[in-house]
């Protein structure tokens, strides 16, 4: 099971879903906060979900308020950077660029892609944490970098 966990973890990095920040979170995990990483990820999804909703609503209002959209995405990007959500972050950056160039179409497209990545990552992390819990706390804490 541990090997499984390690493999899963590795693939998340290799496939570009997660970046170095995730490792930082893992390093912060200790006896005082044995489930720190999972807690942070949970918090992220809860809070960022709110922002996603805001953006969706903003995209339904025509014409687009690009400044507002940009502001939302800025917020979302910052949040995503906290857990090292690499792909999601990339989409956020792209979205902001479209906002700046006032490209509504580009925004919409990018946003869809972003949501996809966002959901995929969530699934993968959920599976990961579930496995980690089964494997035992030691496993996750001693994960080699």
């Amino acid at each position, binding site marked *: 099971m541990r090997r499984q966990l390690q493999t899963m973890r590795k693939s998340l990095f290799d496939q570009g879903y997660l970046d170095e920040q995730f490792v930082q979170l893992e390093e912060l995990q200790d006896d005082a906060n044995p489930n720190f990483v999972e807690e942070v990820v949970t*918090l992220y999804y809860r809070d960022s979900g709110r922002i996603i909703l805001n953006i969706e609503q903003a995209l339904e209002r025509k014409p687009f308020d690009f400044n507002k959209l940009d502001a939302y995405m800025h917020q979302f990007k910052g949040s995503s950077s906290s857990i090292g959500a690499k792909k999601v972050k990339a989409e956020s950056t792209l979205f902001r660029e479209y906002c700046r160039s006032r490209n509504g179409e580009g925004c919409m497209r990018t946003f869809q892609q972003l949501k996809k990545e966002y959901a995929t990552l969530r699934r993968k992390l959920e599976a990961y944490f579930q496995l980690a819990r089964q494997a035992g706390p030691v496993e996750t804490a001693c994960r080699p970098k």
Partner: protein
Amino acid sequence: MVLLESGFSSPRNDVFPAGLRVLVVDDDPTWLKILEKMLKKCSYEVTTCGLARDALNLLRERKDGYDIVISDVNMPDMDGFKLLEHVGLEMDLPVIMMSVDGETSRVMKGVQHGACDYLLKPIRMKELRNIWQHVFRKKIHEVRDIESLEGIESIQMTRSGCDLFDDGHFLGGDDTTSGRKRKDADNKHEDRDLSDPSSTKKARVIWTVDLHQKFVKAVNQIGFDKVGPKKILDLMNIPRLTRENVASHLQKYRLYLSRLQKESDIKNSFIGMKHSDPPNNSTASFGLHKPSNTMPDDVLNGTYSFPVNNSLVQTVDVKGQGDRHGIASVPVAEPKGALSKDIPDSHKTKSSQMSFDHYSLGSAASGVSFASFGSTTQARYSWTEIPEIQSKVEYEPVQPENGFNQLPLPEPSMIEKEVNRSRTEVKPLFDEYRSNLVGHSSPADLVDLFPGQSKNQTLKNQVFDPISATKSSIKTKDISQNCLADSEFAKRNLNAAGREVTLASLPEDLQIFWLQGDGYPMNIALQNFDFPEYNDPALIDETPFYSYDAPRLDHEHLFDPTEYYAIDQGLFV
């Protein structure tokens, strides 16, 4: 940056940077959680905040409760840059900005607004580990600001302290008077010399009584808890006065107040007096207001106004002093409470006051035993005896008769003359003064200062012939008046005594007052006093303190009675 902490939490200076008190402000809960964990791993003390508004409230509530602020640039309720400005101005803390946006223009804006660093998200642990350097840097700069002043002050303090001891406890009598005078004179002279050299380092601001009063006024206006150098500076509106000047002065003031507080505590415990803080005094009105509420007696007021040495007080570094805590918030309260409480009843509770004074003096006077303090200050106290005082600042502490038994009023003769009544009155002043002073560096100094002052106060009420006449009527009501009178008296005395108005001689009461008054450093003798944040309005009101405020840093004028008088009038009236 506060070198010493206030009552809330104190930085662990001994293991710096561990224990660094960080306030993190970010609307993103995920980041808040992560940063909190990261900072804790750095052994820092973390407080998190989701709103800029809350952050400012926290900062204002706990002055000196934090060492550094880390804030995100984008926040819903307030622009991060705005928060940055506020923090810099009001609290003068180092602020680090964070953002996921690393655009040069943004970073530049951050720096322009005063950020000492700009971090890009995602933030690494190692970046947070080094934030202490900003705190340290600020401390160094601040220290530099005041160290020249402090250097002199500390010297004075030492001297004063020595004087106090040397002079012995005035419990007995006025024998020390002359000795003291001499000493004081010497000290004064020395102090003067000391102050000169420092001037070469930087333009030193001489915190005259007047200036200090303005300072105190500003502090009170802002609210002691919310005070910050910039705010004060703005309120004071003095050209050429820099924020650094105010910052260091504020620091001293705080220390002074805390010292007062401490002393009052000691005194109280020692004497068993209970100082009831004057209802409002405490904080505020340092010196400027009339603590009248609590201090029924002029005495209190009088003592209060003992700004004793504004300039002198400089040395007293009230701020930060940990022990100040108690005082910090109530710097005034402490001394004031004690003093005013005690003193107000000067007429009636003289004795209590006396004790108080003793108390305050004792505690304040670093090492000066209260008992002795009384004696030392006593010399000063003899203010009440105005006539006596003139000859020398050393007033014998208001004689115990008045209730200041504890205070060794050394100058019985002086005091006697005055009038017993005045004595008692003076005592309270002295006590207060002393208490105030106590906090500061040289209680003795304070005492000296006050004596005149306190005396004035009390004297005003009664004794001072010229003043007392007026004062007496004022006595209870218009402390300021007393102050004036006292100040006048003090001034006179001061002149006569030269700088000798050592706090030591000042009855504790005076000291207390002194301290209370917004930590208005009793320049006079207290050069060393840091103004504890003495917001004892009550005390302050009494102000004669101010009159004493010898703004001169160079200690030359510890008390310039004439000055004080004028000031008092101006201020209190």
